[in-house]
């Protein structure tokens, strides 16, 4: 059974982990610290008397995800463009079903982080663990197969193809049919085409776009194009969905709808979402954990409430207030 079939099934049942959980983000680190302060017994005379502690681990994940392998963990991630350190020492953890936000002023390096995660750029330093698997040496296509899907800041659809074909292309690695089966129309072809069609329409239904299935993607209105990009990303069967400014160019009503949809996607598909967004209503409204980036460095992490109260964040956005 593929990952996707599983996630589809969850829809009908009562989702146990839905909703928003705020509060005890520090639980994990506190628990770890408590466990670490164990006293060494004096059995070996040559050994120094060392006090062992847990390293300061400032990762934050929702409590419900604390005991599961995090879907994403970045350790000391960094990239240089020439002499410029575009991203430096980024440490980040996203829980299995977390909706996380990545915010920061223009040019802070947010999209660069997405490009690092999806291997559009190879990191200069650091490690990316996707569901516990190191993605070092993988290319963009491989990372997608491993479970990261993304949308783009400047929409990148397959403009000349239909909406349905766009989603079918997203399903590329979910349904198999080789070149020869395709050319000579083997039974495999007809089976796969039916599966492509059914699953594409099912996914389009998430955003009520099934009626547009035969429209040309490039001719859709802007908001619909953004939604189609999300559907296409979902079609790849991701564990982690990266959304690059999903609400850009949307009106407040559409944004409201989008927020509901993002939460719904997380609940139905049981995946994590990491989003870049400038619309603070959206970020504060649905993100559980937020990371703030400025000049390529993390300047704050925490719940929406903590971030809003953080003086460094306010300074980064508004400049120093005297």
């Amino acid at each position, binding site marked *: 059974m593929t990952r996707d079939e599983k996630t589809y099934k969850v829809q009908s049942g009562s989702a146990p982990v839905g909703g928003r959980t705020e509060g005890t983000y520090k639980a994990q680190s506190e628990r770890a610290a408590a466990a670490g302060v164990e006293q060494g017994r004096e059995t070996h005379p040559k050994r120094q008397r060392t006090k062992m502690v847990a390293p300061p681990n400032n990762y934050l994940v929702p409590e419900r995800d604390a005991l599961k392998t995090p879907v994403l963990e970045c350790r000391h991630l960094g990239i240089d463009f020439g002499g410029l350190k575009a991203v430096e020492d980024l440490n980040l953890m996203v829980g299995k079903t977390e909706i996380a936000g990545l915010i920061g002023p223009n040019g802070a390096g947010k999209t660069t982080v997405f490009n690092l995660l*999806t291997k*559009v750029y190879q990191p200069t330093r650091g490690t990316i663990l996707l569901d516990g698997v190191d993605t070092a040496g993988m*290319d*963009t*296509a*491989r990372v*997608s*197969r491993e479970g990261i*899907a*993304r949308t*783009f800041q400047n929409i*990148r*659809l*397959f*403009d*000349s*193809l239909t909406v349905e*074909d766009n989603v*079918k*292309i*997203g399903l*590329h*690695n979910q*349904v*198999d*049919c*080789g*070149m020869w*089966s*395709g*050319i*000579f*129309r083997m039974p495999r*072809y007809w089976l*796969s*085409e039916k599966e*492509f069609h059914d699953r594409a329409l099912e996914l389009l239904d998430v955003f009520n776009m099934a009626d547009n299935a*035969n429209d040309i993607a490039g001719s859709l209105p802007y908001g619909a194009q953004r939604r189609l990009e999300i559907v*296409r*990303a979902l*079609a*790849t069967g991701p564990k982690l969905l990266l959304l690059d400014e999903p609400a850009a160019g949307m009106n407040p009503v559409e944004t409201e709808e989008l927020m509901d949809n993002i939460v719904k996607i997380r609940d139905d598909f049981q995946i994590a979402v990491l989003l870049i967004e400038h619309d603070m209503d959206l970020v504060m409204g649905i993100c559980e954990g937020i990371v703030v980036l400025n000049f390529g460095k993390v300047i704050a992490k925490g719940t929406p409430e903590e971030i809003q109260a953080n003086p460094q964040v306010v300074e980064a956005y508004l400049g120093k207030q005297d």
Partner: protein
Amino acid sequence: MDRLKNLSKASRDTLITYAIVIVAFVIMQALASMHAISSSMIGLLVPITAYICLSISLNLVVGISGELSLGHAGFMSVGAFTGLVAAQVLAPAITSGPVRLLVAMLIAGCFAALAGVLVGIPVMRLQGDYLAIVTLAFGEIIKNLLNNLYVGYDGSLHFSMKDTASLGMNGGKVLINGPQGAVGIEKLSSFIAGFLLVLFTLFVVTNLVNSRSGRAIMAVRDNRIAAESVGIDTTKYRLMAFVVAAALAGMAGALYAMNFSSIVPKKFDFNTSILILVFVVLGGMGNIRGGIISAALLTILPEKLRFIGDFRMLIYAIVLIAVMLFSNNAQVRMAIDGLRGRLSRKDDDEALGDAIEGGDAQ
């Protein structure tokens, strides 16, 4: 009838294309049997089918995969000469002409595909105009190598890159004689064979386009970065289009070569590659039906213009420039669109309009 209505637009377009090809074949065949067309026209029938196949296959690369290839004639020549050699070598084993042609074409296709892989692997590391110039270079290299290739057959095959003397033959026959090419070719090709090859090429390309692999190829064309982001191995699918097209071009090359009594490597030069590209662009990139029609018309046109002698290529050039200017200039396009709006028979015009404007994959 209900089933026909339920077909997607893509399948309906494909069926119309098949129908046009079949009807055209029947009409030409009928005219030929009634001696209603000139002998020079009859001589053109096989080249027309070969060029149609080349147009369809190049469309897979240029229109569907979106890579500008300027060396398609190279694969045609690989197919032509391997096909010729295969047909000669197999002569004692297979006595039936059509069967031998079929086998020779299959072998030609395999060798052209192999050439496609060898050329494609380095080529696919490049993009855009750089890719175009490298395919041009490969086309010229293939032509140059064939210009230096000597092949003889005396029960076993002999190869040389120097001259016929160094083949070390025991009697037998020189099949390929360097720049002089192949002479004394057995004429195995026929209009029917050409027609069947057109159907086969059409079958392969349209089926490939309307499958998982074809969607991946078009995804890479439309947006390479997005295609990668949904997990498509872009190199694999660009290469797939390139190699399938090379194989089909090789088969068409074999058909083409076995229609003449002699053929030289120089026939498959840069100008031939360009000629095929012109078919594709005039027919509308990615529009397979348009490519078929323009291949047929542009092969007949210079022949029909023969009576004006040296002026014919000049007129061909002017037609080419004029069509490009009229179909791509914004003002002219607006005028055409206005005209189309006034004509109510929308469906009929669409096909024509697509052919002129370069509509997308069908």
